[in-house]
Every structure is written in C-alpha cells, then in structure tokens.
C-alpha cells in the first residue's frame, strides 16, 4: 500500500512539474521570441514609412534599405500567424504571397491606370484588395521594371507612401495587441480565455513552428523547384528584389530559435533539433544563388533540392519527436486544403 501511495504522490508531483515547465516555456517564448520580433517589425516599418515620406523614388537607396530592413523583420516573424496577426486580415495585408494568379501586378496596374483616389488616405487604403497592400506590392513598385515606371510619377509616389504607411499601421497594431493583451492570454490560460490550458498555448506555439517549416519547404523552396521536368524559378519568393534565398535563411533562423525554446533544456532532443537546423543553415550559407535561378538546370538544382530535404528532415524531428514530447499535435493550418 505504501508503495502505491508513494507512486501516486510521485505521479502527482511529476504532473505538477510538467505544468510549471509549460508555463515557463510559454513565458520565455512570448517574452524572448515573439515580443521582440513584433517590436522590431513595428520599429522598422515605422522607419520605412518615414523614409518613404522623404523619398519615394523607386531607385532611391534609402528607400530600398528601409524596405529591406522592414521586410527582414516581417520574415523573422512570419511564422507567428495567430492572434494579433489574424485580426482584420493584418498578416494577409502585410504579406500576400504566393500570388499564383498574378493579382498583385493586376490590381496595382488598375489603381495606377484609373488613378484611384483611395490612395490619398491610408485609412481608406485598408479597404483595398490585399494583393495591392504590404511588402510584396511594394516590391513591384520599387523593383519591377514595368510597374516602377507605370503611369504618373506622382500617383506612384502616393502609392509607395500609402502602402508604406499602411504597413507601419499594421505592424504597430500587431505589436500593441500583443503587448496589451495577447501575451498575457498565452502565458496565463484560463477557462474564459482564448487558451483554456497551458497545453493549448504550447500547441499554438508548436503549430507556429511546424507550419512555418512547412511554408518554407513547400512555398519558399518548393515553388521555384517545381518538378524536375518543369522547374519554376520565376515562382521564387521576392525574386525581383533578390531576396528569395535570404528569406529562407531568415525564416529558418527564427524557426530554430522557437524550436530550441520548445525543446526540453539540455536534452538530447534539443541537441538534435539544433544540429538539424545548423545543417540546413550551413547548406544555405554555401549556396551562391540569391533567387534560386539554379533550379532550372539539372546540374545545379540538386543543391536546392537537398536544402529542401534538410528542412523536411527538421520537420520530421519536430513532428515525430518534439510533438509527442510536448504532448501536442500540429492541428489544422491554413495550408491544409489545396
């Protein structure tokens, strides 16, 4: 009997310890991974809006630099697609990609051609199709040889300034919501809250990791790879600004950070997760092909294929080992479906 009681007490304390671990883990991820990323995005987006006010010319170096910094900040947070990013379509408006039906150039062209006055006020611009908002629309206006000279200079300048300001509003609102309320709802789940238990909060974070990995593999790498017979280099992300490879590196670095914070501290699993990321990142560092143009040639596409396999092997460790370790499932994500 004594043995049984002992076992029961042991079990109870183990459960308790597990519960506390989850709370601390969530807290660390919110404070050290999520909040700094959205703060950075808000800051860099505010810079971008200011620079655009002073200098809206497509070829302006300060504008391109400010754009690059803000876009970097978004990519580093782009896996955190839940809560404040999903209110009022904020993340969609910041980052409408992939655009497989070519809506972005089409919508921008229509705005420019009709000199749509909606561009005059940033509050009104929030009504515009997401395809003409955010970083990918701005890329067309700054880097695309056709759209960067389309129509009247003044209208295009207004468009650049309004889109930059809209980005800044979106980023600021995301950060404000995280700070004012959402961080707390994750760290302190309650039956009346969005997360009813610590497990649900951990599950959300795990889902961000697994969905982020899937997006990087399937979209950032998979789209340009296409198939062996039909590679699609022009489907690479942000190739006009030469950022395709760079995005894979930024996103994997961010995903590495959240993965290591989810894995048990000092465990063999933590080590293995770290090594799997390091392998993919070192392969990326050695690839001298910023827009994945090499996928079009039989001889060179193998490197990109291998990078994708390395990302997929991270996904396997995450799904088959980290998920069960945390006692959570990936759940459903926006990429389910076709």
């Amino acid at each position, binding site marked *: 009997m004594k043995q049984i009681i002992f076992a029961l007490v042991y079990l109870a304390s183990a459960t308790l310890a597990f519960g506390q671990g989850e709370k601390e883990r969530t807290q660390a991820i919110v404070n050290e991974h999520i909040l700094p990323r959205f703060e950075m995005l808000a800051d860099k987006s505010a810079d971008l809006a200011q620079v655009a006010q002073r200098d809206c010319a497509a070829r302006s170096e300060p504008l391109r630099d400010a754009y690059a910094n803000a876009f970097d900040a978004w990519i580093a947070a782009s896996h955190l697609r839940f809560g404040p990013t999903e209110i009022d379509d904020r993340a969609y408006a910041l980052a409408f990609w992939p655009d497989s039906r070519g809506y972005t150039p089409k919508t921008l062209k229509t705005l420019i051609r009709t000199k749509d006055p909606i561009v005059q006020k940033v509050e009104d611009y929030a*009504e515009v199709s*997401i395809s003409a908002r955010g970083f990918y629309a701005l890329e067309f206006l700054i880097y695309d040889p056709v759209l960067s000279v389309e129509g009247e200079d003044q209208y295009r300048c207004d468009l650049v300034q309004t889109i930059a300001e809209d980005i800044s509003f979106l980023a600021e609102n995301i950060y404000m919501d995280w700070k004012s309320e959402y961080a707390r709802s994750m760290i302190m789940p309650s039956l009346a809250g969005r997360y009813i238990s610590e497990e649900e909060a951990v599950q959300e974070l795990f889902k961000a990791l697994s969905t982020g990995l899937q997006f990087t593999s399937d979209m950032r790498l998979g789209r340009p790879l296409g198939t062996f017979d*039909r590679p699609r280099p022009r*489907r690479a992300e942000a190739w006009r600004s030469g950022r395709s490879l760079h995005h894979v590196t930024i996103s994997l670095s961010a995903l590495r950070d959240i993965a290591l914070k989810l894995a048990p501290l000092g465990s063999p699993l933590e080590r293995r997760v770290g090594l799997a990321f390091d392998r993919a990142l070192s*392969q990326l560092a050695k690839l001298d092909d910023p827009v994945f143009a090499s996928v079009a040639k039989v001889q060179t596409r193998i490197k990109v294929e*291998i990078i994708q396999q390395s990302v997929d*092997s991270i996904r396997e460790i995450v799904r088959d080992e980290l998920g069960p370790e945390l006692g959570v499932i990936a759940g*459903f994500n926006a990429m*389910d479906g*076709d």
Partner: protein
Amino acid sequence: MKSVRLIAKAMVLPFAISATSALAVDKSAVLDTYANIAAAKYQDSLIAAQSLQASVNALLVDPSAEALQAAKEAWLKSRIPYQQTEVYRFGNAIVDDWEGKVNAWPLDEGLIDYVDTSYGGPSDENEYAALNVVASPKFTLSGSEIDASSITPTLLAETLHEADGVESNVATGYHAVEFLLWGQDLNGHGNGAGARPWTDFAAGNACTNDNCDRRGEYLKAATDLLVSDLEWMAAQWTEGGAGRADLMADQDAGLSAILTGMGSLSYGEQAGERMRLGLMLNDPEEEHDCFSDNTHNSHYFDGLGVQNVYLGSYVRIDGTVVSGPSLADMVAAEDASLDAEMRGKLSATMMALGLIKTTAEAGFSYDQMLERGNAAGETLVMGGVNGLVDQTRSIERIVAALDLDEIEFEGSDSLDDPEAVFQ
C-alpha cells in the same frame, strides 16, 4: 482496508466497463456509419450527374434556350450532394488523389473556350491560360504537337487536364462543365451570372462564337467523364470497396481521417482559401462557383457535409435517411460538454452559411458581397469564416480528447551524404 478496496473497485468498475464497451463497440460502428454516408453521398452525386448527362445530351441533340436552361438546372442540382462529399477529401487519400479530376478550381477558363478580351493572354504562371481548345484542332503543348481534332474524354483527362503541370489548367470536372454551360461572368461585382447564349451550341448558321460542334463535343466529353469518375468513386465505398477497406484497416487512423477531413475542409480550404481570401482580394472571380453564381450554395453544402458527418445522419436526395452511431455519440460518451460545444459550433456555422445563402437568393449575390468597401457583404462572409475557424478549434479538442494524436508517421528518406554536394 478491505472495505476501502471494495469501494474503490465499485467506483472504478462501472466507468471502466462503460468506457471500454462504448469505445470498442463504437469505433467500428462509427466508421461504418461514416462509410455508409460516403456511399450514399457519392451514389447521390452519381445519380444527379447522370441526370445532368441526360440534359446535356438533350441540349446537344436539339439545342434551344429551354434545353440550355434545363442543363443548367441539372448542374445546380448535381452540386447539392457533391458538395456534401467534400468533407471526405482531406482525410481519405483515395478521395484526395481523385478529387482534382472532378472539382478542381480555380481554373483559367481560356484554356477551354473563347473568353472576353479583358481576360488577358498567357500569364507568367500559365502559358496556356488562353489556349482555347474548342477553337484549336491542333496545338503545341510543352513542346509536343497535339491532335485535338476530336475532343474525347481521354484527351481531356490525359492531355489537357493540368497541362504543363499547371493546376489552373482545369480541363475536366464540374467547373469545366459549368463554364461551358454559363460562360464567363462578365458582370464584375454586379448581379448576374455568366450569360452564354444557347446558340453557342446551335447548328449551321445559327451558331454563335464559332466552333459550336467542337464546343458541344467538349461539353459531352467533360460530362461523360464526370459521370464515369463519380461511378468509380461510388464503387469505392460499397461493401468491399477500397475507400471503405482503407478506412477500416486501422480504427484509430479511421477516426482520425474523419476529423482530419472535417478540420482541413473547415479551416484551410473553406474558411481560408475559398472564403476569406476572396473577400480580402475583392475579386469576383474568387468565388467557388463563379460562372453560375452558385457559390452561396457551394459553401452551404460544404458546411452541411461537415455537420452531417459529425452527427452521423445524412438525408439523401430522395429524402431517405442514412444514419447510425456517430462521432458525436463517441465524443458525448467521453466528454458530454465537448460534444455540446461541437454541436453548438456546427449549428452556428450553418446559421451563418445559411444567412449567406438566403441573402444571395434574395438578390444580394455572393460576388457583390466581395466588393471593396461592401461592409454588409464582408460581415456576412466573415460570419461564415468565423464559424468555420471556431469549429476547427473544437475539432482539435476532439482529436486530443479521443487520444488520436499519436498516429504513426512514415520514416524519412534523406540522402546518404547530402553534405558532399556542397563541398
């Protein structure tokens, strides 16, 4: 001590027995109901498609405005059972692998037939977006010369569908037939569907927009193919069919398939890809049944399919009911409040999708709802989206409550020495 043990036993035993028996009996019975409903839904889809086929044949034999209208009505009816099957897609590989043949969307319809000049030509993504097979007995596709002098089901299925590896080259299925019956919807955000004249199928001098024979041939080939594809799928769910066998092979994986289908359709596909994206893009073509303006029904019956699979009860197109032990029963035995939560959310979604449907039927059509700055439309569509997103959270809770989260995955196949390539 003895009394304590007895009490303990008395307390534990009833739970243990009921839990074991409930779960052991229910799993196979629940899967059976799910498979029976699949069989009924695909059989209904087949029956409705055969009726569409009869109307299409009548139109082609004796073209008239009335015959075209009858074919359109048969198409609309055929969507009612089919949309309710979509909940089977994502959980069942046999359905998912096949689905692209019958319901692929969105499509670059210029592949098939003439389009308005505003449609544009070939795009970065799709060189064949404006191929127009109806007008082209011969053309080059990915470097090969294609003889399309006769438009057959084989040509559509094996050569044209997803031509050049582009998914929007949709040559077969409901939406190809829909385009041939209605034509492009050129009303933008205004009310009204596609308005193809019946004379697009007329003989001799009455023929409009040229190639009426070939257009008719295409319509017949696509409709015949739809019927034979549905025949195949209906057979997979009869006793001894592969869909049923796959499902029953592992009970936990089978239950997981039910929930995967419900969750993936609700969230990523319907709430995301089909509803919210269209709203955010403000594009009238971003609606699922865009030629016929039938999207409100498409969404409604998708939602109904999720609900009737959970509740284990489907009303067939002849009014008879197929029902049995359900996932709802199983969840209720495990956690009654979770079952109540799930039922409540499914009902809320159906209420929201019902509002979209009734409002569209009253004259405020789905493409109008998508227009920039249309607050009333946005509220209606987002009501459906929010309901679907919200029900997905409960579906995830059910996956956890039924302990279906430890499903085995396939191992990895990475290269032996990938680093060597980077040296």
